[in-house]
């Protein structure tokens, strides 16, 4: 009896420790007023609206709460840290996943939320605070990674969307399958079973990857479909991007899918895009994915697999901040639009290093138009001097 009690206490201590560690990760690092010059010298971005926010202003809330997507978390952590140095505004982005973000914003439990997938019309109309805007903040990519010892140091494997779908469907089971060898002569002698690795936890990354596979394979679209959790016909499940990356690096002849930032130390495949070219995932090829498509004014678009740009990485996606169009608290609204403005301009420089891709200019223009629609007390929340600078 005593030992069980001790067990419970220990387990509790571990949980508390984990929560504290997560809290430490998401909370801003310092409260200190930073030097705006430091950020400016790093920039060199030739864009109107860049470098306009140089410190805090009167009347803005000094604290904002948010939750949601973990896909852009590394970038948001950097933004939050830099923005805090610059303005002293503390932003607590609690993560929890896109689903959590959508639930929280719909219930007005947070000031804004992050999501990798767009909210459906009925989800928005169910929200208690009115219309919700989708402001794209950055672009991310999902990259197929594999572990084939024979190909170490050689050309990357070239995959078509259809072959990728068939691997995950269990229809292509060997690396020397004729369909793969057609694009990859090097694979002819690799007589090994393919072990597909997927995310076991519900995830926006899985959602985007399965949206891509559905767009490439009719069988996938009919049977497995797309979602945060799907019924994988074959393979092994691992937890989170780090879990999939570690599983692939440990297991020979496996294949997995991870965010761009996690593909660095692994063998990463080239994937054929809609223009028919095999491309490598990089910040440039991901940014290019927003070019060969027409962006709608509300930015609610799934661009995966759609871009006809020659250089576009096909499995690229926007990630969004979800914000109420009509804000209730003037000080929070001011703080919020200034932060998003800063992210869309000054914040873009941090994207590439962290495994994301900066937004192209036309996407930023559409985002700013959305930012101008945010109202508080019947007036635009965006300060006039910022609105004039676009």
């Amino acid at each position, binding site marked *: 009896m005593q030992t069980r009690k001790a067990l419970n206490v220990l387990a509790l201590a571990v949980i508390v420790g984990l929560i504290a560690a997560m809290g430490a990760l998401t909370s801003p690092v310092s409260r200190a007023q930073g030097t705006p010059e430091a950020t400016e010298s790093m920039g060199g971005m030739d864009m109107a609206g860049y470098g306009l926010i140089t410190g805090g202003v009167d009347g803005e809330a000094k604290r904002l709460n948010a939750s949601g997507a973990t896909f852009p978390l590394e970038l948001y952590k950097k933004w939050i840290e830099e923005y805090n140095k610059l303005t002293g505004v503390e932003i607590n982005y609690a993560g929890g996943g*896109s689903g959590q973000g959508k639930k929280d914003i719909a219930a007005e439990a947070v000031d804004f939320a992050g999501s990798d997938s767009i909210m459906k019309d009925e989800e928005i109309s169910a929200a208690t605070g009115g219309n919700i805007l989708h402001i794209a903040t950055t672009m991310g990519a999902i990259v197929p990674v594999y572990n084939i010892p024979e190909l170490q140091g050689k050309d990357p494997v070239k995959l078509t969307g259809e072959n990728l779908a068939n691997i995950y469907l269990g229809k292509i089971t060997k690396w020397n399958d004729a369909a793969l060898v057609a694009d990859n002569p090097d694979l002819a002698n690799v007589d090994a079973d393919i*072990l597909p690795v997927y995310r*076991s*936890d519900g995830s926006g990354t899985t959602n985007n990857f399965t949206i891509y596979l559905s767009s490439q394979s009719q069988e996938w679209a009919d049977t497995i479909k797309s979602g945060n*959790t799907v019924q994988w016909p074959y393979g092994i*499940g691992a937890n989170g991007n780090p879990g999939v990356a570690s599983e692939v690096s440990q297991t020979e002849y496996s294949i997995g899918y991870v965010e761009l930032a996690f593909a660095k130390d692994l063998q990463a495949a080239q994937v054929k895009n809609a223009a028919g070219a095999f491309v490598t995932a990089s910040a440039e090829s991901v940014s290019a994915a927003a070019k060969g498509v027409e962006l709608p004014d509300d930015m609610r678009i799934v661009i995966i697999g759609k871009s006809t740009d020659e250089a576009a990485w096909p499995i690229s996606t926007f990630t969004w901040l979800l914000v109420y169009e009509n804000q209730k608290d003037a000080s929070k609204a001011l703080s919020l639009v200034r932060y998003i403005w800063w992210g869309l301009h000054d914040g873009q420089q941090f994207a590439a290093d962290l495994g994301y891709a900066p937004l192209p200019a036309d996407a930023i223009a559409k985002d700013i138009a959305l930012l101008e629609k945010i109202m508080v007390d019947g007036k635009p929340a965006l300060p006039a001097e910022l609105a004039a600078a676009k």
Partner: protein
Amino acid sequence: MAVAKPVQPQAIVGTQSGDQVFRAFLIGAALLVLLVMIALIAVLVSGASTSISEFGFLFFAQTDWNPPSQLFGALAYIYGTIVTSIIALLLATPFAIGAAIYVSEYAPRWLGNPISFCVELLVTIPSVVYGLWGYFTLAPFMRRTIEPFLKNTIGEVPIIGALFQGPATGRNYLTAGVILAIMITPTILSISREIITQVPRLQKEGVMALGATKWETIRYSILPYARGGIIGAAMLGLARAIGETMAVTMVIGNSSTGRITPSLLNTGATIASTIANQYGDTVDALHNAALIELGLVLLIVASVFTIGARVLVRRISKLPGARA
């Protein structure tokens, strides 16, 4: 001193009301346990109501778990839970009982005491620690050494060979069963040891006086007496195995194929591992309700085993040689 006298009658009255308060507190504490149980079931049932009314009994009979198609069946996960728990029980019980007998009957005090202490420590290790060890050490060992060996030996035998087929991945029912066995061994061991040491000295000495060997003493005097308690210990271990989440999730491979295949080398999933994996990021309400219903199913599975264990213990206690 003079004050003490008038106080005395009051003190008696005070004791009586204290008795009543104490009694009320005890009743309250006992009722609270019942209340928590009822509240738990009520919350699970109400949370799962959309899933229950959508699928009814099919939830237990279907193996497909396909959130985008809004199709949820728990059978593959129920199978995973039972199979891993039974592997754990089969592997852990002989070792645990053997070690318990050694520690309490054979080992000299200077050895028995440290072993008992270590066992108590093992019980308190959080499951995530076992999980990490399982992920980084046990799973690769299973993949490289144990699984190829099993495939090439038992795997070649007809019928039971079906249990060991397919590629060695190190993450499967078998690895999950092994890690569960390691986790529940200390539980079974420490309770069994306690029960064996409670066998009356007179009973042991009586058998020995008739000329019984050490083995015969254990076989005819200790084991019959402790049988009920040892089975109870094994069932406590089993209960821990059924609900174990973290360590299993890390080594079972988290399959979502919705197929039940005989091979223990296939990746699998249990009820608890599925809840842990999917609960965080569900988007639609039916998926959420289905996960809550899984929680209810886990409660049912655990209850069935617990009730079964009680019946078994009662039966066995009535056999000859057992404690009255």
